């Protein structure tokens, strides 16, 4: 049984805007799945429909075998949602926010407090349980929404931009936390604008653009499609003119940095050998662009130019 099955899902808003034009998405149980797309592509609409915040126009949604039309309570029981925008009561203490959420899922108050303690401790917020939520920092507010989403122990966790606006240290600790949750069996759907986040965490991916799914595959298969990677090389010595290399075209960025495109048929060793033979040492190198980011941009641009996917 899949964690999520979406078939021919369409959404037309009252103003006539067609946000989803018949999308099909499947997410296997236990998967860590990335749902990516540019702003306005339809990601949030799709997530809104799955979590009952948006009414669909047509199509079918099933979560762990529960049909959204026939058994909405079954669907809702399986899902935990961490939305993009803060959506908790700013005038309520943190502990109560989490306990109340458990109560809405029918968990009695005593057990709700035990679970809230567990969730809040996992996210380093237990000490702040009596504090009003408005007093938290941005990163803590994001963690509060994760704690709240986990209190009923959902089988499917949907994270809509969970690390937006948080510093790199917190972001990395949240990545570890999400990976651990997934290892323990929770299926996770992640939308993010940090594509390195999706690349390092997710095993499968769907890319949505202009209301259509333009890619739905395994992450490694998708990355394999990338024919060229661009590297930035930091040179040991200053150069006044670009060296001529066979099969590689270099671009000078400044006196000590060059950019080079390496296609999938080429070896980076060949590049280093040629540079060494001309007496040029490389002190370090880095990808100019994240690999997934490069693919993502290619797809979005092709779609914009009307090229077939």
């Amino acid at each position, binding site marked *: 049984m899949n964690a999520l099955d979406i078939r021919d899902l369409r959404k037309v*808003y009252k103003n006539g805007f067609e946000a989803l034009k018949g999308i099909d998405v499947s997410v296997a149980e236990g998967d860590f799945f990335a749902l990516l797309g540019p702003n306005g592509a339809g990601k949030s609409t799709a997530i*809104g429909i799955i*979590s*009952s*915040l*948006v*009414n669909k126009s047509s199509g079918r949604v099933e979560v762990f075998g529960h049909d959204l039309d026939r058994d*909405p*309570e*079954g669907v*809702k*029981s399986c*899902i935990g*949602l961490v*939305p993009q*925008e*803060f*959506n*908790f*009561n*700013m005038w309520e203490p943190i502990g*109560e926010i989490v306990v*109340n*959420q458990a*109560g*809405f*899922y*029918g*968990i*009695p*108050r005593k057990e709700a407090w035990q679970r809230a303690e567990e969730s809040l401790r996992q996210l380093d917020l237990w000490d702040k349980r009596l504090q009003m939520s408005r007093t938290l920092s941005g990163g803590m507010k994001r963690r509060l929404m994760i704690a*709240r989403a986990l209190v009923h122990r959902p089988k499917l966790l949907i994270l809509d931009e969970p690390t937006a606006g948080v510093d790199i240290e917190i972001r990395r600790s949240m990545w570890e936390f999400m990976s651990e949750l997934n290892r323990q069996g929770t299926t996770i759907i992640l939308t993010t604008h940090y594509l390195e986040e999706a690349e390092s965490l997710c095993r499968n991916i769907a890319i949505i653009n202009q209301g259509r799914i333009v890619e739905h595959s395994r992450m490694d298969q998708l990355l394999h499609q990338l024919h060229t990677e661009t590297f930035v090389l930091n040179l040991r010595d200053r150069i006044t003119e670009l060296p001529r290399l066979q099969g590689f075209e270099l671009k000078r960025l400044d006196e000590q940095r060059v950019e080079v495109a390496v296609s999938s048929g080429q070896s980076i060793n060949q590049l280093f050998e040629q540079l060494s033979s001309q007496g040029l040492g490389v002190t370090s190198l880095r990808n100019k662009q994240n690999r997934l980011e490069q693919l993502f941009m290619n797809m979005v641009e092709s779609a914009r130019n009307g090229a077939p996917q």
Partner: protein
Amino acid sequence: MTRYSRYWTAFRTIFTKELLRFTRIWLQTILPPVITTVLYYIIFGNLIGSRIGEMDGFRYIDFIVPGLILMAVITNSYSNVVSSFFSSKFQRHVEELIISPVPNWVILGGYVAGGVARGVMVGIAVTAVSLFFTDIQVQSYGWTLTVFTLTAILFSLAGFINAVYANSFDDISIIPTFVLTPLTYLGGVFYSINMLPQIWQQISLANPILYMVNAFRYGLLGVSDIHMGVALGIVILFIIALTGFSLYLLNRGIGIKS
């Protein structure tokens, strides 16, 4: 855990949340109606009322007691639900409920119970204050409590519908200011409709608050301008209609879903 025990827990959670919300800010929610009512008793009851004389066989201050208590119940049950539900829409934490497996009738029940709780609390406080100014003897506890509770339910439902349609804070003050207050003042709180010319008596019968004020006055004083069966029937009819409409709005997601 059975389905209905889950629903009961969800209902209690919404109700407790509502209860905590308005008791935490009792200076804004419980105290002001008590002070307003004291002022009514001093000015209309004692100062002006002593010159008016009797109305329907009662001292004027005794005559206005039922209306003033019910006015506090109406205003507070309405404003509790309208402000709480609109604020949950405004801050988007209504989404906590929408994504949870709580049926819409439980959500409605929880908010209405919160409104009734505030209406009842304020009503009790205002009644307690009344005892310092009047010495009324309750004629029928059954009628008094029934009308008291049904009125609080009805106006909690009305507040809920207002909140569903409201898109701004202005929208939640328009109905109380331009509809609720005039209807309450013209609903026989301060006078008997028998004092009015025939045509205005007929027009007054279109005001639903008139039936509640008179039914409540009957419970407390034993007098009413309206037949009690008609009054009760109208209140129950309104409750059924507003409940049905509120559930329709929730089921369609009007005002809360896109």
